[in-house]
C-alpha cells in the first residue's frame, strides 16, 4: 500500500453512529416505559409503538456496532481535505443560523451570501455585498410584502418600522 491519506477513519465514526442510534433507542424505550407500553383495553397504549421501535433500533444498531468492532478496516470516512471543505461550508451555516437569532433572517442571509462569494468564490467585495443586500431585499419583497409571510426580523427591520 502506498501513501495513507490523512483524515478520519470510517471505523470510529461507524462505531459512534451505531452507539448514537442505540442510545436513541434506549432513550425512546425509557420514555415509553414512563407513559405505558402495554396492551390496554382497546389496543396498544401510547408508549407501545415507540417502545418496540426503540428496541428494534437498539438491536439493529447493536448488530452494526458488532460488525464495526469486529471488522478492522482501514477505510476512510473522509480525508483531511474533504473535512476541511465540509467545514468551510458547514461552519458558516451554523454561524448563519446563530446570527439569525440576533439580527434576523434578512441581514444574516445577506451576510452569508457575501461571505461565500468573498471567501470561497473570490469575488470582489463590493459585488459580493451588493449581491447579498439585493438577495435580502428580494426575499423581503416576495415574502414580507407580496405573500404576507413574516420571517424572523432583527433590530435593523425594527428601525425601518417593520
Amino acid at each position: 500500500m502506498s501513501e495513507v491519506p490523512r483524515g478520519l477513519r470510517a471505523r470510529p465514526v461507524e462505531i459512534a453512529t451505531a452507539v448514537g442510534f442505540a442510545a436513541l433507542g434506549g432513550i425512546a424505550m425509557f420514555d415509553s416505559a414512563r407513559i405505558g407500553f402495554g396492551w390496554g383495553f382497546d389496543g396498544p397504549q401510547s408508549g407501545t409503538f415507540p417502545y418496540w421501535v426503540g428496541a428494534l433500533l437498539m438491536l439493529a444498531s447493536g448488530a452494526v456496532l458488532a460488525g464495526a468492532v469486529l471488522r478492522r478496516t482501514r477505510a476512510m470516512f473522509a480525508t483531511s481535505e474533504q473535512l476541511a471543505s465540509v467545514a468551510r461550508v458547514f461552519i458558516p451555516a451554523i454561524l448563519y443560523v446563530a446570527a439569525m437569532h440576533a439580527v434576523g433572517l434578512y441581514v444574516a442571509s445577506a451576510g452569508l451570501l457575501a461571505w461565500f462569494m468573498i471567501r470561497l468564490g473570490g469575488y470582489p467585495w463590493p459585488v459580493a455585498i451588493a449581491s447579498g443586500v439585493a438577495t435580502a431585499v428580494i426575499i423581503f419583497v416576495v415574502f414580507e410584502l407580496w405573500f404576507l409571510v413574516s420571517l424572523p426580523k432583527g433590530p435593523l427591520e425594527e428601525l425601518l418600522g417593520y
Partner: protein
Amino acid sequence: MENLAALAAGFAVALTPSNMVLMLVGVLLGVVIGVLPGLGGANGIAILLPLTFAMEPVSAIIMLSCIYWGALFGGAITSILFNIPGEPWSVATTFDGYPMAQKGRAAEALVAAFTSSFFGAFVAIVMITAIAPLVARFALRFGPPEFFAVMFLSFAAFVGQGRGSAWKTIASMMAGFLFACVGLDTVTGALRLTFGSMELMRGFDFLVAVIGLFGISEILIAVEEGLRFEGAKARIDPGVVFRVWRELPRHGAIALRSSFIGCWMGVTPAGATPASFMSYGMARKLSRDGAAFGTGRIEGVIAPEVANNAAGVSALLPMLALGVPGSPTAAVLLGGLIMWGLQPGPMLFVEQKDFVWGLIASMYLGNVAAFLVVLTLVPVFAAILRIPFTIIAPLILIACAIGAYTVNNAMFDVMLMLVFGLIGYVMKKLDYPLAPMVLALVLGNRTEQAFRQSLLLSEGSLWVFFHGWLSGLIMTAGLVLLAWPLIGRLTASVRARMA
C-alpha cells in the same frame, strides 16, 4: 351522457377570457410557490385565499386550483435539481430525479417529471369526469382498518430489495419512526419523547427533517469533491423534450399502474404521499432490473410523478363530493369553498352544477396551461445548475432556512434542519440508506394512528384488518409484495433447475 353535456357547459364557464387569464396567473403563481421553499401548496393557497374574496366563487376557485396545479408541477423542480423535496409527495421523485441531474440529465428528468405529472393529472380528471359519483361512494368504504392496510401496502411495496446492510436499513427506518413519534400522540393526547421540552412538543416536522437530510447533507457531500455541483455541465437543447417523449411510451405500463394507484389514493383519501412511495416501490419491485433504481432511472421519476399528480387531482373529488380534503392543500380549498357560500358535500353536485362542472372544465384547461408553462421553463430551471457553486450554495442554504422556518414559524426548526443535515451527511457516508428513514418519518404517524384507531374500533382484536373484504384484500396484496423478492428468487431457481 349527461356528464358530457354538463362538462360542455362547464367549459363555457371556464373559457371566458377573464377566467383564462386567472388560470395563467394562478399557474405561474403556483409554480413560483412550488419552487419557493416554505410556500408549499397549502400555505401558498392559504395566503392567497383572502385575496380572492372579492371574486366570484367560480373565478376564485379556478385561480386557486390553478395555483394548486402549478404547485404540484413545481414541486418536482427542486427535488430534481437540488435533492430538496418541497412537499412530502416529491420525496420519491428525488430518488432517481436527483441522480439524473447529477449525471447531467436534469433537463430530461424535468421533462419526464412534467410529462408524467400531466399524464397522471389527466387520467385523474377523466376519472372525475366520468365516474365521479361512483368513486365518491367508494371512499366511504374506507375506515381506519382500510387506511392501515393502505399504509401497510406502501411500506410493503417499498421495503426490501434495498442495497446495503439490512441492519442499517432497519436502524434507519426505526430512527425515522422514532422521530415521527416525537410530540403529541394524536390518539391519546399524551406527550411522547418530549422530555418536558416545549420545542420538542412541536414534533419533528417532515419538511424540516427532509430539507436537512436531503438538501443540506447533499451540499456537504458535494463540497467534499471541491466547491461545485455535479451536473453543472448539463446540456440543454430543445430536442430534449422530443427525445424524452419518444422514450416515454415504453414506460406506458408503469404510467398506467401509477395513475391507477394515484387516483385510488387520492379518492380514498390517503393522499399523494403514500401514492408516490407506493408506485415508486412497485415500479422498482416489478422491474426486471430493480437494483438499478436510485441511480438515475427515468422510470423512477415517472412512477412517483404520475402517481402524485393523479392523487393530487383526484383528492379534489372527495373534497367536493364528501367534504373531506384529501390533502392539506385541499383542506385550504375546502375552507375557501365554505367562505364563498358553497357547502362541499354530496349535494354540491346536484345544487351547484355550474360551479362543479366549471371547476372540472378548468382542471382540464389549468393542467394543460400548467404543463405548457413548466415545459417552456425547463431550460431556465436547468440553467440554474450553471450558477457558480459559491453563489448557489448559500442561496440554497437560505432557501432551506426559510423553508424550515415557515413550517411552524419556529427558529428551533432551522437549527433542527442543520442537525438533520449533519446526520444525513454521516449516514450517507456510512451507507445507511436515507429513504427508509424518510418513508417512516412521513407515514409513521398516520400508520400508527390508523392501526390504533382500528384497534379502538375492534376493542383490541387484530383480526379487524382481515374482517372487511377490502382491508383484507389490501393486506393480502401487501403481504404478497413483501414476499415478492423471495417469490422472484424461488421462481428463478426453479427455472434454473428446469433448464
